[in-house]
């Protein structure tokens, strides 16, 4: 009666990540464990971020974001206070249908997204330097290590594939 869902999930990718970092004996143990766990585990039915526009993908460094500072005015947040806004903003109605407006995150949104990526890296045993929302050299290095270990292009960008592998969702409730 219980509905079993299959597909890519954080549980699996977590096991994956650890397996890469350890030797062969551990790998076998982990595989056996994962197989055992699969009887009980529920993994997500689809990639975490399916059909969601990723406005963070082009941001590899926080400093480059400074050039978009004017976009902060588009944010629904007021001033410097932290506001929780959904990562995905629907396309504004006034934009011409032929050329959709490029969606850019607000400074707060970007900072929060970087913090979440840093937390995910840290939780998986990578060292992003600090969980502070700054795309530091150390964070980039940790991202590249993580990407390389998961067969992703090691470019330190928050691509949808990288976010999926990290278990970081683009949309929020």
């Amino acid at each position: 009666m219980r509905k079993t869902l299959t597909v890519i999930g954080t549980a699996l990718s977590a096991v994956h990540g650890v397996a890469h970092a350890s030797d062969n004996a551990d790998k076998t143990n982990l595989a056996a464990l994962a197989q055992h766990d699969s009887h009980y585990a529920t993994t997500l039915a689809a990639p975490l971020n399916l059909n969601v526009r990723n406005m963070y993908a082009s941001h590899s460094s926080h400093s480059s974001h400074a050039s978009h500072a004017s976009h902060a005015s588009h944010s629904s947040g007021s001033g410097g206070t932290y506001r929780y806004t959904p990562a995905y903003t629907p396309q504004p109605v006034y934009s011409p249908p032929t050329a959709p407006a490029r969606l850019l995150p607000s400074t707060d949104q970007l900072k929060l997204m970087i913090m979440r990526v840093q937390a995910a890296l840290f939780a998986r045993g990578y060292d992003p330097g600090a969980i502070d929302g700054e795309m530091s050299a150390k964070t980039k290095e940790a991202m590249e290590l993580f990407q390389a270990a998961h067969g992703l292009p090691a470019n330190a960008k928050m691509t949808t594939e990288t976010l999926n592998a990290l278990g970081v969702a683009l949309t929020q409730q």
Partner: protein
Amino acid sequence: MQPLEAKVQCEKWPAAPLLKVAGLAEFAAGAFPPERMLLDLRDAQVRAAGSAICRLPWAGFLTDVPEHAPPNRPWIAVPQGAFKVGIGDVVELRPHASKLALRYRRGSNNNILFTTERCNSYCLMCSQPPREVNDGWRVSQLCDLIALVDKDAPSLTITGGEPTLLGKDLRQIVVRCAEMLPHTHLHVLSNGRAFGDGVPAHTFEGLHPSLTWGIPLYGDHYGLHDYIVQSVGAFSQTIRGLYALEAAKQHIEIRVVLVKPVMERLIELARFIYRNLPFVEHVALMGTEPIGFARAHYDDLWMDPADMAPVLVKAVDFLSKRNVRVSLYNLPLCVLPEPLWAYSRKSISDWKRQYLPACEQCVVKERCGGFFSWTTDRWTSRAIEPVRGASCAKH
């Protein structure tokens, strides 16, 4: 047994909030806003993550050491010996009473949405005796809880009381689940009487991608069923309700509690289900939970499961040969003949499951559902004994 409510220390809480316990992964995943989450400072990774993360607008902090909570922010400290609160769980804090209650446990096999204490039946073996109280406030709280349940939770049980007494609000809860938890199977435990008495079953048609109604039927005859549920007319309402649910294309499970009077006509009941309710997808034959009204009616209800074996074998055989899926709940393996083991499920919720001293040497303990933690000697079968290796090898 783990109590699900505990006295805690807490400070600076404004209202009675429902809170999701968060670690780093929950923050990273972003499925829930920090404002609804309780950051678990007891977690080594969270503590190692630095102070910037604490400055986010968390609802509050869970800690063993109140001094570790950031100044002027709400915190909760759960004392040793209280129930365990883990990352991913949802808790309800009543700050004025300093009480913390567990509302959702991540990874548990039986998370429930408790809809109401009211019921229109008064079953002899009811484990959750009904109370005539006005608890309509539960609906909005459940809708709030549903939003904080893990998106990959395999299943939730909607129970009570009698959930259909909520009227339209039950539909609202199901809709809310369909919106927030489309991958989570819903199991609604109802006596189905409302659907045989005017409530339109078709309002549930197509409402949820995966919903099963678990409906009890205790006899092939109204006299027996009405006696067990202590309500005149219940049998005909439930039967009409079953047909109404079938007409509304609902998935239906029949649940039979194996008390003495029911056992006496179990084979007839199996025939009745096969002939008259062929759309039923699953029949659960369940041992009695020795709590609530059941304890008061021991003499009328108790039958040693060891004495049930011949009838159980026949009934299970009858149904499974006719492709009706059948399962046995709440009966330890050692009281069942081995051919029935394949039908036995580990049905007792993890938080109320225990094993007896005899189970220590049993080779099939891992497969066995064990006992309700409130089982007493007189509710325990004389046939309890460790299953030895030889017996298992045959299987």
